[in-house]
């Protein structure tokens, strides 16, 4: 069977030969025009006068559009209708598009876009969380609060307490391929759009609104993205709409791609948080009650901030059973780029919150941080996995008193945790990573050092899989079997490097019992599969794999029925395997089977549809089952720091990650390795800095530092946990896009562990823990202040 094989990415050969085509590589009609936005140079205020004469007279400029020139909707927001394509006269952040230049070349458009003369009535922008809170500038009427039990009294009654506040910075996606779109006008006003987007249907919807036509008049095609990470879930709307509007007006194809600096200045990033915590615990380190306050910097528009902030709350328990917890989340509106989806979608921020609490308690108690975590883990399920490793027995390590009692194994939002794999997974990781011996060796090494210290930290991941907006958990597919036995595969998911297309092709190949080479993977196309959800929330394979399976099974069923009748045998005796179809005693090639079915006038085309079962979620109450299942993983990171400069680096990382019964172990390991490094980058070197005027100062790779080659761990051991999904997912696999990102939290905790070696007190590290931050905290704990 094709599933579970470690096949390379379907486009690997195209990638390495430079033949993989991205939007900007599309051959263009000769008359194609190129676009660029003129941007606001203030963060808040109004336009009092706008002189675009120099823009219009700039060489090769064909047209210049402002909000007044837009024929229909001036909105590129995903749902809240609060993001005009071009400013309506009010300005909300520095970098907001004001006018659109249409020119004969990309460079000519960029040159002209800088020539606008705009006068402003400038107001003082709200940039910080304090300022926004003081001004009560927020989305939703007030904070969202999710709670379970009475956290305040549980904390008050607990024998020990811990509290603190820390900053958690945002993150630039830094997809290597910047945002890009191309609109080709069709007859009768229709528009064909080629977009680098995770969400073709939303592009279709926004373009249709903007050109005043039904969705049927707009077709969106996406072959691949050069990285997405959530940054192309909604942020591509502006380019696609701009292209469509300009194409409609000029009658010519229009292309837009952001220069890297423009991309970083215009588009949203990961939400920055400030997290305050208070927790009560007993002598054994067991949590009695936890209280979190999340201040979320959403930027100027709502975008996806509400579900992002919700998901942060939903991951505030991470792996721990907490009987009393309260989470209060303030979604603050500021004059910065509108924060958006980014791998983990708030989950990482929520998870860092509780991991910080665990780290702090372990420090105060002087207890091994892994042991502390295990004592607080959710219980393992009673049911052993079929074919997988036996889960830990019911007497989990948490019951240190020896008393076994039925415990409340529900999350703060009332969902029972029935698939908790972390007891066994943690055991396996600690053993393979040689935790205990290394802990001792590091302590001995540190005792010999003054300026350098090493740190070691463990962090687990439990990540909820499903869109929390329940209706998004659906997918469609379209499969054709041609009369020569070749297969055309299409579904609503988009390929951004994660290997979705190959994994889904492996599913299709397995259903038909054929090799994956017989399957042609085709570009995502709103004309083939309609009403798709964004490829997001790690759901791509789960949803689209199931939809493809359904479509394949429909065709296979028709083929089996026809062939069984023809061979006078039972339909159950028809088997598809090894590129063959066995019909009772007979055996024909799949190709021959396809030919016979065609000649027998059997339909060899089918759609497939899937919707995730069992979901029920009330986001206002914070109650229900928002997730189909959880994906798990754990990492152990070792670092070294220098207190004189704060310089630090990752020496070793060991990871064990749960991808269920993996559809493609090598591609899944690729997600884990890459996710870890990206997560560690978020918490270490990736620092976003705005000045007092709201100007982003880190708007290029020269100033914004994602991990480079040598920043990966020197020793990097990554393995998949041998298990299978306890829920009925596609071949019992698990989603793997986002969960491994949060494995990077252990790098941040390891820095904290190392810094703690310089003194006696808990190093209250902020994130990102840049060299400067590490230096500052090392100085604090060593009481040099």
């Amino acid at each position: 069977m094709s599933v579970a094989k470690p096949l390379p990415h379907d486009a690997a050969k195209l990638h390495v030969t430079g033949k993989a085509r991205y939007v900007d590589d599309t051959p263009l009609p000769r008359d194609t025009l190129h676009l660029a936005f003129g941007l606001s140079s203030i963060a808040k205020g109004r336009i009092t006068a706008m002189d675009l004469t120099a823009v219009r007279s700039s060489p090769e400029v064909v047209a210049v559009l402002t909000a007044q020139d837009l024929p229909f909707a001036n909105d590129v927001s995903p749902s809240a209708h609060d993001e005009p394509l071009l400013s309506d006269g009010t300005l909300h952040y520095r970098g907001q598009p004001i006018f659109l230049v249409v020119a004969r070349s990309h460079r000519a458009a960029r040159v002209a876009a800088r020539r606008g003369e705009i006068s402003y009535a400038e107001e003082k922008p709200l940039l910080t969380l304090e300022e926004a809170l003081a001004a009560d500038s927020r989305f939703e009427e007030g904070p969202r609060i999710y709670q379970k039990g009475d956290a305040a009294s549980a904390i008050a009654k607990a024998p020990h307490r811990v509290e603190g506040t820390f900053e958690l910075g945002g993150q630039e996606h830094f997809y290597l391929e910047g945002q890009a779109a191309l609109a080709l006008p069709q007859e009768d006003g229709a528009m064909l759009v080629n977009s680098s987007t995770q969400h073709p249907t939303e592009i279709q919807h926004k373009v249709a609104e903007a050109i005043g036509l039904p969705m049927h008049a707009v077709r969106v095609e996406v072959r691949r993205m050069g990285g997405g990470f959530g940054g192309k879930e909604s942020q591509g709307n502006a380019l696609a709409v701009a292209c469509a509007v300009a194409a409609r007006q000029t009658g010519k194809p229009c292309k837009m791609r952001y220069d890297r600096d423009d991309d970083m200045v215009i588009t949203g990033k990961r939400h920055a948080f400030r997290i305050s915590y208070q927790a009560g615990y007993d002598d054994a380190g067991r949590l009695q009650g936890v209280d979190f306050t999340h201040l979320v910097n959403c930027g100027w528009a709502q975008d996806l901030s509400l579900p992002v902030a919700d998901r942060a709350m939903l991951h505030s328990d991470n792996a721990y059973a907490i009987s009393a917890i309260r989470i209060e989340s303030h979604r603050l509106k500021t004059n910065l780029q509108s924060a958006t989806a980014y791998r983990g979608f708030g989950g990482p921020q929520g998870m860092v919150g509780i991991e910080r609490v665990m780290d702090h308690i372990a420090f105060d108690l002087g207890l091994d941080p892994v042991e502390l975590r295990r004592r607080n883990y959710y219980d393992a399920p009673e049911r052993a996995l079929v074919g997988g490793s036996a889960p830990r027995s019911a007497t989990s390590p948490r019951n240190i008193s020896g008393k076994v009692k039925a415990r409340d194994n529900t999350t703060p939002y009332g969902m029972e945790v029935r698939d908790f794999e972390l007891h066994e997974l943690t055991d396996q990781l600690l053993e393979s990573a040689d935790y205990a011996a290394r802990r001792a060796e590091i302590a001995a090494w540190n005792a010999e050092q003054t300026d350098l210290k090493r740190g070691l930290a463990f962090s687990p991941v439990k990540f909820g899989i499903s869109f929390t907006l329940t209706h998004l958990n659906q997918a469609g597919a379209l499969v054709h079997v041609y009369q020569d036995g070749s297969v055309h595969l299409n579904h609503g998911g988009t390929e951004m490097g994660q290997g979705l297309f190959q994994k889904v092709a492996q599913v299709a190949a397995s259903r038909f019992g054929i090799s994956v080479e017989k399957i042609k993977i085709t570009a995502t196309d709103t004309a083939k599969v309609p009403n798709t959800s964004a490829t997001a929330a790690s759901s791509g394979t789960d949803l689209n794999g199931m939809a493809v399976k359904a479509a394949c099974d429909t065709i296979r069923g028709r083929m089996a029925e026809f062939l069984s009748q023809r061979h006078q045998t039972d339909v159950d005796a028809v088997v598809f395997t090894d590129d063959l179809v066995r019909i009772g005693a007979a055996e024909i090639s799949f190709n021959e089977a396809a030919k016979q079915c065609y000649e027998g006038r059997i339909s060899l085309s089918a759609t497939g549809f899937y919707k995730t079962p069992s979901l029920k979620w009330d986001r206002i109450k914070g109650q229900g089952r928002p997730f189909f299942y959880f994906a798990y993983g754990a990492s152990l990171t070792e670092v070294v720091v220098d207190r004189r400069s704060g310089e630090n680096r990752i020496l070793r990382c060991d990871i064990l990650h749960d991808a269920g019964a993996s559809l493609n172990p090598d591609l899944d390991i690729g997600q884990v390795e890459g996710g870890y490094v990206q997560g560690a980058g978020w918490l270490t070197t990736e620092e976003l800095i705005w000045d007092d005027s709201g100007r982003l100062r880190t708007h290029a790779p020269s100033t914004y530092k994602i991990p480079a080659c040598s920043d990966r761990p020197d020793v990097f051991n990554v393995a998949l946990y041998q298990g299978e999904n306890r829920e009925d997912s596609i071949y019992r696999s698990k989603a793997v896009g986002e969960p491994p990102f949060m494995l990077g939290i252990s790098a941040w905790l390891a820095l904290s562990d190392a810094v703690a070696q310089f003194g006696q007190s808990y190093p209250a590290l902020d994130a990102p823990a840049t060299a400067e931050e590490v230096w500052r905290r090392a100085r604090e704990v060593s009481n040099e202040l």
Partner: protein
Amino acid sequence: MTITFHLNGEEVVLRDLDPSATLLDFLREERGLKGTKEGCNEGDCGACTVMVTDRAGSKPLNSCILFLPQLNGKSIRTVEGAAGDDGALHPVQEAMITHHGSQCGFCTPGFVMSMVTAHKNGATDHDVQLAGNLCRCTGYAPIIRAAEAAAAQPVPQWISQESLPQATEAANTPRSSDALAQLYAAKPKARLVAGATDLGLWVTKGLRDLGEMIFLDGCEDLKQIAISDREIRFGAMVDMNRVREAIEPLHPSYGEMIRRFASQQVRAAATIGGNIANGSPIGDNPPALIALGARLHLRRGDSRRDIAVEDFFIDYGKQDRLPGEFVEAVSIPRQPDRLRVYKLSKRFDQDISAVLGAFNITLADGSVAEARVAFGGLAGTPKRAAHVEKALVGQPWSEATVAAAAAEMSQDFTPMTDMRASAEYRLESSRNMLMRYFRDLAGASQSVLEVQV
């Protein structure tokens, strides 16, 4: 202007070209070679990497900040030319597929070309070779596995036997320093282009018109390195990878700093003369050169002068260079190696320094005989720490002396806060660097980069 180069083995002659056109735009827009990608358009991501071969060998270069006239007489290989004519993949391409070195694939052509070049040159220090290629998907591990797997494979014939065309005689491309001196004296307002790793951004980001440009790449005599008993002399056009090779055995700490200076691609283009002459307050060479007592050799027409490197930097944006005068060479007096250079940046590789400190202290009978301490990133120019030096000279070389001297740092510098670092961190870490130097000389210090597990 007319130039000639080879592109994937085919001769290309360009007439009437715009001298500020970049190779990347030419490849993508004129030739339809879309494999080479634009990731950042400033030489920081490596997605546009191509292999450029000249008589000195093959190097990886960022095509986004490479002006076409810089390619006259050279041979360019893009990702489209990495495989053989019969479609046979290069060993690094095969390995990248086998080891899952690509995910989204957008950075991949740049990685492939860096790897093809390193493979051709027999370089196996993969982290150094690939420091200038950013990947956001893979976490790099599979790419390194691919590089390791390909290392033992032979270099394919189409890569090893790169042919070179004759450079076309073109205006504003002098072939010697004498010709340059004459030309520049006559056109003192022209813009001198060495490696274009800075000037390239004026075009791609600043969208500026550079006016008349003079390309120095043909001045072979400016690419000489001469090491004698008396001095190390670098011609202004010596690229930073060659500086690294020459300096590493003599002043290893300086060599190690250059390893982290920009990236393989940028160092292959950037020149030591350009890094000084552009006057940046955060160029990494000047503090090291100042600490070594290096002298700058300037030339205008037939008149020459030389000055201490520190005297070249008058103020922010202002250097001691007359119209029509250019940097011909920099020379470093030979000396016992007591130099340490500490580069502090958010990321180790390819990052502009928050602070760069260079320390060179000579002792006699346990006391400080001479102190040369210079910093970048603490002021509007690279600058010596005069008060610190004064507090050191004549004092016994002890921790107390160092501590007292470190306290003087605030007399020398009032650093600023920006996106790279706060003023306080800059100042305090500069003090700690002095202490680190003291421990380093005593053999009692280690960098986090040296810790292994």
